[in-house]
């Protein structure tokens, strides 16, 4: 009667005693330029080494340019961070997927794409969207820099077991409704702290029917519901995705691995602390209207009226920031920018969805739209599949891989008052640039908005061939 989370947890216990957090072994540690420098400084000042450089991988993604990568880049402070990571990796013997590598990309795109992310592993990274990797049936969660240092030094983390929340999604997603809409609906339902203190397991037919890309989108935004980790039990979809990837087990080890991975299912009588039921058939494309990912409605709806009670101050502040009025229909909200990218929605399937909408159209005049692939490998694949050509012909900017305007640490930034249809994960005030206004949507919704010049319901799109 154990859940998937229970099973992975128990398998990784190094030490436990009453009244103390459990010491958990970490199988895979991913690091990047922004949250690791202080951790390496800590190691050095205490004369410590990296215990398992072989289980640690690095890439650069957060603050790097996605246009013109001639080095060093003009942002000297960001450049220093990249150089610092290079020095740290070389000093401590850590493999780095640097800017000149085809593998380089957003850390949560790279791990799965290279086959490092595997079922049953414990995976951490100094980034809250580490929850993405749970799509493979791994226990994966974001950590702070002090914890990064702890993992570097000990390959373990002291952890207190979380509650287990089950989100069961039955039925089929209707045409035009994607994994992104599904997770926005979950966040809308349970609230942005509905999963606080929990690990979410997503179950049900609608989840099983998702591709790995879709499952990653769902698990990725678990943190936007407050849950440090989201997970989905592995199945043939998972194994098919992993087989043959560079770091996936090979030959006899592959067979043994798959045998073990098949056992990573919650028992039929497993007990969860709480279960939320969602009917996929009732969902439509979702759009956020406010400054928290829970502030969303279906595209056919309007900006809601103020909710009476506690959160009124947040509601009024959000609407004022977003420059919207209560009862204003979502369709028809005029946009200035569109961003297709981020660890939520920059994988090949996301780009295919967006390209299908963009084919044969032009980006509306006055709209700036960009596509930022999740990794250089995806960029190459999209070019080979002819997706890049569709985007470029339609007037989208076609960029190099990185986090880009999801958090706008590089030059990809919204201007004051600019409104953006974005496939990223956070619509916080100033997230994409000070004064910038973010509407979170799926890749096809973002592409449709870029072409129409305003938010539209992609279910009514006239596709061109």
């Amino acid at each position, binding site marked *: 009667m154990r859940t998937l989370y229970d099973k992975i947890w128990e398998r990784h216990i190094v030490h436990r005693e009453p009244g103390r957090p459990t010491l958990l072994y970490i199988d895979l540690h991913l690091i990047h330029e922004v949250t690791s420098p202080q951790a390496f400084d800590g190691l050095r000042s205490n004369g410590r080494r990296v215990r398992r450089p072989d289980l640690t991988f690095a890439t650069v993604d957060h603050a790097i340019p996605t246009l013109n990568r001639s080095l060093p880049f003009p942002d000297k402070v960001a450049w220093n*961070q990249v150089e610092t990571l290079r020095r740290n990796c070389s000093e401590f013997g850590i493999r780095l997927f640097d800017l000149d590598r085809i593998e380089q990309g957003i850390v949560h795109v790279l791990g799965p794409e290279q086959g490092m992310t595997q079922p049953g592993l414990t995976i951490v990274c100094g980034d809250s969207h580490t929850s993405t990797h749970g799509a493979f049936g791994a226990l994966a969660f974001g950590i702070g820099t002090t914890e990064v240092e702890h993992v570097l030094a000990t390959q373990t983390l002291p952890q207190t077991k979380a509650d287990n929340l089950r989100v069961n999604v039955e039925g089929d997603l209707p045409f035009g409704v994607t994994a992104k809409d599904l997770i926005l609906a979950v966040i809308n339902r349970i609230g942005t702290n509905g999963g606080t203190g929990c690990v979410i397991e997503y179950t049900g037919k609608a989840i099983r029917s998702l591709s790995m890309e879709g499952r990653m989108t769902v698990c990725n935004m678990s943190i936007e519901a407050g849950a440090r980790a989201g997970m989905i039990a592995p199945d043939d979809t998972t194994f098919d995705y992993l087989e043959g990837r560079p770091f996936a087990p090979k030959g006899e080890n592959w067979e043994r691995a798959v045998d073990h991975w098949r056992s990573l299912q919650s028992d039929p009588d497993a007990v969860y602390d709480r279960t939320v039921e969602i009917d996929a058939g009732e969902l439509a494309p979702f759009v956020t209207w406010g400054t928290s990912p829970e502030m969303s409605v279906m595209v056919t709806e309007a900006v809601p009226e103020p909710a009476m009670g506690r959160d009124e101050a947040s509601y009024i502040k959000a609407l004022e920031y977003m420059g919207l009025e209560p009862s204003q229909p979502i369709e028809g909200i005029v946009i200035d920018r569109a961003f297709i990218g981020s660890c939520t929605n920059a994988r090949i399937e996301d780009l295919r969805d967006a390209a299908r909408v963009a084919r044969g159209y032009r980006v509306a005049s006055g709209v700036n739209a960009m596509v930022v692939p999740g990794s250089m490998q995806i960029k190459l694949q999209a070019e080979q599949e002819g997706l890049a050509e569709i985007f470029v012909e339609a007037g989208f900017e076609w960029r190099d891989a990185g986090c880009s305007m999801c958090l706008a640490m590089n030059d990809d930034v919204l201007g004051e008052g600019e409104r953006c249809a974005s496939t990223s994960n956070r619509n916080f005030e100033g997230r994409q640039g000070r004064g910038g206004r973010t509407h979170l949507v799926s890749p096809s919704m973002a592409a449709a908005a870029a072409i129409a010049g305003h938010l539209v319901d992609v279910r009514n799109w006239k596709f061109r061939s």
Partner: protein
Amino acid sequence: MTPFVKHTGRAVAIGLANIDTDQIIPKQFLKRTDRSGYGEFLFFNWRFLPDGSPDPGFVLNDPKYATSSILITGANFGCGSSREHAPWSLLDYGFRVIIASGFADIFFDNSLKNGLLPVSLPEPIVDELIKLSTSDEGLKLSVDLEDQIVSGAGLAVRFEIDPFRKESLLSGMDDIDFTLRHEAAISTFERDSMPIYRF
């Protein structure tokens, strides 16, 4: 880590729910490679107008609250990004205690590991403290970790904290030193229990 035992100071309130770490410290300040000096960037977009001058409408710019060291705020404080720069900037600015009806998990852990005490109290009490902090005379509070009591303005409220975390804060213990006491157990795990993978 600086130990936390007891702290007395003036309180200031930002009575909004879901204040995320992007508000606490915006991304443009995450490019530095050290742990200190982030206080001047705390709540940057709320504290400063686009021209760089202080926004007189923001509570931290009110001279009345200039010396505050206890922040009272709404539910789910610290949600979003895992950036540890959030507690670093709060501490560097001068805060030692955050009182809220709830915290986001990663922020909560990051705070404890830096000696910044997150205190969870029931919503009605938080609302009352927010009201008291905006009164003419302001609000001075004492937070005693040993006894787990927040007191001031005639109130005395007990708060809960995990005993291990309490002990760590009181002693200022380094987690890594504690974990390395179990070095032998880590080595045994590595020898006997590693899953099948070949990185």
